[in-house]
């Protein structure tokens, strides 16, 4: 099936770099992570990344990069020199004149923290710390290798290292967690005044240790109380909720993630990374993904790009909406056509109904869910499932 692609415009471009190694796999994690060998083959991985980047030159289409996000795995297990060399190679191939955000995911822990200052020095300007909780019991349940004092020290170290943009990742709805404990975690995090918190509920995903051996999670009503009380604390600290789980001081929003939610483009680099690019030539939007095994990626067993697919119109609609409606302010209605190449009239029936039910705001120029709509976002999105 082909579709009209009138008005399709290439949106801003980010780059997602995946480093696949962890000291050990957490029981809730369903990301592409692998237990690190005694020595991480940084040089081999770097060469592979650069080769892969060159192979994907076409996807880039000469566009400037707006943001870089380094996720994992545990990116802070890699040395600062690895990133220095990567950024250097990147700058020779890609227009970085507009790149103003380079985020690195890091874990609290003495080995990693020793590198924070160097990370900052090589140009990484935003740190996302996987704190998850400040409660020692919950950290153990989550299988984290850091304890609560590591967590506190990690934040301080990051600040001392010169990072003025720091996100703290916190989970709630943890096994046996009470609303008081969740609030206490938040208060501890907010006391550091880092300006950004990702506060998301633990969900049990397939292919995780928790999935095969589920921990006792709080019931629905407790979860709702945690949510309610937690939100009050976050608002009280002057943070704005700009996405379902993302809270920041105005101006502190993660630009890279915002680009996802606004259905922007992003390149994929590294084992198991996913990318999305708008092909202005063919008028199509393409998703592609990299081979997951680090060894295969390094040794290029098969293609590093494990698969790609051109999105059909119906997928474009759903993917656009499931991203855009997560944002508190939504997106301008004009984005729909600009970023899917489809006329807005395609979804007018759904929009009318959802607006009539008070799930979408009655604003013709902005696609945005009401507070109630964001609360039941999965019900809202069902309207766009083909």
């Amino acid at each position, binding site marked *: 099936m082909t579709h009209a692609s009138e008005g399709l415009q290439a949106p801003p471009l980010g780059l997602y770099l995946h480093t696949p190694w962890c000291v050990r796999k957490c029981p809730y994690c369903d990301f592409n992570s692998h237990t690190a060998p005694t020595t991480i083959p940084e040089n081999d991985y770097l060469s592979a990344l650069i080769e892969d980047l060159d192979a994907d030159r076409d996807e880039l289409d000469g566009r400037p990069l707006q943001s870089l996000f380094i*996720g994992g795995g545990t990116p802070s297990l890699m040395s600062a020199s690895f990133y220095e060399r990567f950024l250097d190679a990147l700058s020779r191939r890609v227009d970085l004149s507009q790149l103003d955000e380079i985020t690195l995911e890091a874990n609290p822990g003495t080995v990693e923290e020793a590198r924070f200052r160097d990370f900052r020095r090589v140009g990484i300007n935003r740190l996302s710390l996987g704190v998850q909780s400040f409660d020692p019991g919950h950290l153990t349940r989550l299988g984290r290798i850091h304890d609560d004092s590591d967590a506190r020290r990690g934040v301080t170290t990051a600040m001392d290292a010169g990072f003025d943009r720091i996100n703290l990742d916190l989970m709630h709805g943890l096994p046996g967690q009470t609303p008081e404990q969740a609030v206490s975690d938040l208060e501890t995090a907010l006391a550091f005044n880092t300006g950004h918190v990702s506060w998301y509920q633990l969900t049990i995903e397939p292919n995780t240790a928790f999935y095969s051996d589920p921990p006792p999670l709080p019931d629905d009503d407790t979860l709702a109380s945690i949510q309610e009380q937690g939100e009050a604390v976050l608002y009280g600290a002057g943070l704005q909720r700009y996405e379902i789980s993302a809270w920041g001081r105005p101006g502190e929003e993660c630009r890279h993630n915002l680009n996802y939610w606004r259905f922007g483009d992003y390149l994929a680099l590294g084992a198991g990374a996913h*990318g999305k690019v708008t092909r202005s030539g063919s008028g199509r939007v393409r998703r592609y993904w990299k081979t997951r095994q680090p060894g295969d990626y390094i040794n290029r067993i098969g293609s590093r790009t494990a698969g790609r697919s051109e999105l059909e119109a119906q997928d474009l609609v759903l993917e656009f909406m499931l*991203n855009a409606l997560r944002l508190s302010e939504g997106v301008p209605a004009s984005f729909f056509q600009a970023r899917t190449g489809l006329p807005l009239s395609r979804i007018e029936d759904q929009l009318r109904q959802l607006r009539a039910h008070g799930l979408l705001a009655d604003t013709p120029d902005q696609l945005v869910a009401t507070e109630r709509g964001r609360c039941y976002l999965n019900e809202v999105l069902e309207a766009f*499932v083909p």
Partner: protein
Amino acid sequence: MSDLSHIRNFSIIAHIDHGKSTLADRFIQVCEGLTDREMAEQVLDSMDLERERGITIKAQSVTLKYRAKDGNVYELNFIDTPGHVDFSYEVSRSLKACEGALLVVDAGQGVEAQSVANCYTAMDQGLEVIPILNKIDLPQADPEKVMSEIEDVIGIDASGAVPCSAKNGTGVEDVLEALIHRIPPPQGEVDEALQALIIDSWFDNYQGVVSLVRVMHGSVRKGEKVLVKSTGKSHVVDKVGYFNPKPTTIPELKAGEVGFIVSGIKDIKGAPVGDTITHANTPDVAQLEGFQKVKPQVYAGIFPVSSDDYNAFRDALEKLTLNDASLFFEPESSDALGFGFRCGFLGMLHMEIIQERVEREYGIDLITTAPTVVYEVVMVDGSVEYIENPSRLPDPAEIEEIREPICEANILVPQEFLGNVIALCEERRGSQTSMNFLATQVQVVYELPMSEVVLDFFDRLKSATRGYASLDYQFQRFQAANLARLDILINGDRVDSLAIVVHREQAHSKGRALAEKMKELIPRQMFDIAIQAAIGNHVVARQTVKALRKNVTAKCYGGDVSRKKKLLQKQKEGKKRMKQVGNVEVPQEAFLAVLRVNDD
């Protein structure tokens, strides 16, 4: 009369797990109908559903060649019969094609009620009944006792009962020898005009209608023009043959034989079960006495989940009634469920099987409403109405009296479980009419409201007796009772398809149980849902399904959206199995909540 002395047509009457299928398989093996390699277990139960449930639903036949000890080769036509209480009607159909029947009884467990009923049917039709004592290899086998029980309960001479073990093969040839010596050969005249009885018909996508027939007189060949008596339509025969058990084409089917005819009939109503087939040039051949039409005992509304499937659903029901005359259906429309059919069934198993067959074979998702019996309603003006849909019960002010169907239930049970059976019957408002202590069991007869029997009585009886009790029941009469319609309201709206008829003294407890069960079955949604049970304007129970606090995926990494999409697709799939009532999504199971109020 032609010499048909080499033919034997027989059925097997047996309780579900008394070993009929195993015995039939042994026959096939002894007669080399199948090689060992081809011998799948229980080949005769050919519908997937039958094999899964381990029961026989439809009549099937198999033709075997048996070389007897007297040196002659006999043609044995075995017409299979269903063994479940719901399908006794099918049994009498199969028996019409036979001259004899094997009554297979578990030598350890004794006679069971359904076999008694079927045995009477066989004897009424003049069939020779040979008792077979199966499972004699088991340590608990007690052939003497079981023989005396056969004589006590059924009243036939059991001294010639043949002991065997279908499982290990002992005595199987003795059974075959008894069969050829004691069951008479069919009577018929090959040279007379064709007269064949349609035992069963089914629709085959490639061949059109296939009919299983018993040829009474004459013969039929490929290429001949045949006439279906009741329709008056002629068709050219494409092929004739028998099942061995694979369909095998032969040149000719003759008087006394059982086999199939395919004659390019495309209209599923073109070859009704019980009809007579003759040649087009002998239209005056007498029509054979067909089968007695049975009345459904249980009615339920069945609706396609998607209204687009209405026509396909009607076609499916038409195809199923072709060889299941006991299935009744007529259009029904419901405010809550849209357009569907009010269907009548022999019992709950029949209902479940029809629903499963439509869903499985025709790919249509269905919603079934609470099953009900037929009530006889005497109006103030003296007229009488029969109501098989609770929502159609007239205004109480116009009703003089509501009468419920009463049945006589014949139960056979080992003495140790007698107490449980009596307790169950009393709980179901039964009154005992007789009790008879037999060699290994007790025969107890109760009068029970049909509504208490058709829903889950059989299952409860089985679990109260570790599976040993057996049951047969028959409609007796309508009897006045203090009945009322119990309505279910969802968010204040009466939902017609959820109404049931209850005894007034049970209204409160039933209403409470039903509202509680509904609360369990209706998933939490974006708003509170009030569930009320009411008699008229009097609310007898109330439950609330609290609103979902939220439904949103916490974390969404923009990178890989495939998992999230799958989650949404699954969510949407789930809703397909639900029906929108007002703005509430009600899952299929909730419409059958009344059947589950006794679950724990």
